[in-house]
């Protein structure tokens, strides 16, 4: 849109066709834009609609006629009083509160080790990233086997005790959640490591050199130069993991199926059970929307922080 001959006096004349062609461009892209908007918004609007009804596929009426079963905000009222929902939400938050910091600290520690060159770095680096590549369902099976009462984890622990250890990891309500969290940490620390390493490498070398020449110790440099300069990328890494943990499902479902009882039932597992086993679709829509709102708030907060970090 720039015009080389746009010297000061001619600005208005030149601006007119520019606006015109911009308007034409808008008209030309309008169908595509509407399509994208529709694709993005339609499922959400449908959810909102269904969540206000008592519709289920078993009722025998198509979804667009769900208004015949209009119940207003009753689903949301039920949700407020649903202990199983709050339990699942609390459990998800608990997993997040443990797993995200552990993954962050492990990832950061590994990044510190890998930012400098050493022998065998490449091989070790690739090895470390393997868990991330494993299909979560397969990871679920691996940990299902590892945590059997006669499994390798207990065998390993038996080395340190006189009696053979026979802990029933996956059928103990407290330990099952721990086992699930260990699996998540195993699988997703590499992602954290990968993102943080990329961030750490991009911290300018000369700034670190300057800090050394000014007499700063390693710790001082790490906390005053490296970490502040990685702020944006740390927020991105944390946001990704927070959102992902909200969606934690496959590994967990294969390991425990949400059990024993509801001991490892997170939001996603709960939603799955309500949808597939109890078929209360309108209620699920209400849950999904509630979660969407929570996640959106988290994301907006993270993005705001990120933008502030990038501003000079």
């Amino acid at each position: 849109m720039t015009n080389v001959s746009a010297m000061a006096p001619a600005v208005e004349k030149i601006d007119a066709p520019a606006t015109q062609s911009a308007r034409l461009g808008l008209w030309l892209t309008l169908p595509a834009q509407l399509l994208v908007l529709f694709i993005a918004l339609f499922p959400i609007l449908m959810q909102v609609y269904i969540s206000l009804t008592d519709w289920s596929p078993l009722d025998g009426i198509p979804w667009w006629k769900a208004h015949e079963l209009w119940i207003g905000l009753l689903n949301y009222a039920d949700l407020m009083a649903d202990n199983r929902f709050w339990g699942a939400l609390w459990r998800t938050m608990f997993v997040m509160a443990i797993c995200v910091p552990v993954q962050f600290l492990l990832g950061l520690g590994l990044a510190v080790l890998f930012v400098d060159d050493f022998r065998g770095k490449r091989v070790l680096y690739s090895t470390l990233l393997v868990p991330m590549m494993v299909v979560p369902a397969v990871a679920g099976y691996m940990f299902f086997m590892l945590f059997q009462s006669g499994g390798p984890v207990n065998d390993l622990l038996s080395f340190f005790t006189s009696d053979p250890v026979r802990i029933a990891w996956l059928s103990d309500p407290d330990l099952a959640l721990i086992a699930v969290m260990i699996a998540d940490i195993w699988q997703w620390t590499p992602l954290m490591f990968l993102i943080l390493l990329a961030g750490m490498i991009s911290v300018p070398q000369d700034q670190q050199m300057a800090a050394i020449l000014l007499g700063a110790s390693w710790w001082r440099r790490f906390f005053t130069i490296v970490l502040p300069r990685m702020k944006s990328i740390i927020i991105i890494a944390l946001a990704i993991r927070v959102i992902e943990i909200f969606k934690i499902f496959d590994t967990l479902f294969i390991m425990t199926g949400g059990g024993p009882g509801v001991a490892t039932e997170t939001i996603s597992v709960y939603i799955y059970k309500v949808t597939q086993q109890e078929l209360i679709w309108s209620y699920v829509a209400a849950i999904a929307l509630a979660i969407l709102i929570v996640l959106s708030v988290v994301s907006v907060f993270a993005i705001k922080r990120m933008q502030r970090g990038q501003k000079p």
Partner: protein
Amino acid sequence: MSEIALENLGKTFGDFTALAEMNLTIANGEFMALLGPSGCGKSTTMNMIAGMLRPSSGAIRFNGRDVVDVPMAKRGVGFVFQNYAIFTHMSVRENLAYGLRAQGTPAAEINKRVQAFAELLQLDTMLDRRAAGLSVNILQRLAIGRSAILEPSIFLLDEPLSNVDAAFRAVMRSELKSLQGEFDQTMVYVTHDQLEAMTMADRIAVMDHGKLLQVGTPLDIYNAPADTFVAKFIGAPGMNILNGRFVENAGVVAVEVPGLGTLDVPPTLQAAAKDKKAPNIQIGFRPEQVNASQSGLTMHVGFVERIGARTIVHLEHSGSTAKAVLPSDATPPLAGSDWTFSASDEAIRLFDPTSGQALKGRAH
């Protein structure tokens, strides 16, 4: 206050020799410029003095003490990076205070010194601004201040003026020089800009291809270049060097440049010229010292460049080129004509064509 001595200093990267057998002593409080084109080893030398690189051979002594094994944080060296390496996520104040904080200086003392330095460098009005938005000129002063506040006895500057515009560069040249007077440190200044080196340095070390070619005061280097590289590198434009051979006439040696004519060898160089057995020689003279003359060398005038204060005449003849710089009030020769010129006795330098070394004259 520190004296820096580089002894047989060398640095290789694999097969590549970045620096070989560098011997240089920089006196207490001296302003030394390391001057040379890109890849000449000047930055490598500087980084070894700072401790960022470990020498492959040789020693670096501060006041006689070998510091090769002293980590860079402990060398007490101030360093200004080419791009300043300002901590842009901090305020100006935090940048200035960084080194003092790292040393555990009490907060009251830090405040006092930051304030004093900010005033000295005219940064006091922007102490609480974030460094990210500042102009290059201010970043530069901040970079100097951030290092200088620790009062290092050695100050290293890596092409600090290469990012600033020409006008500010002129200001900074005098400002840097006066700052050195203020702090009185030993300064090592890396640059590829001979004007910076000539105007600021007490002495200049000219380097090329990892070798130290000549060390001397700016005028020494300008007047008595050690070899053809220095002769051509220093001066704008550099010295004219023409291939010729000795001819002797009645016991007086002259240099004949084939096809162009003959220039007399000045009396101070006669003895050296006679000692030289091989007839081939290179004769050099500065473009500023060329005068129109009845006899001497004759060359075609290629084109005439008028740049205000002076006029540069580009000369060419049978593969040889030369330049003449004339004062703007002189009438320059016409482009396309032939022009005969000579250079005065004081202007003539002779160089060995194989080694490039200057022939030493002697006063008589």
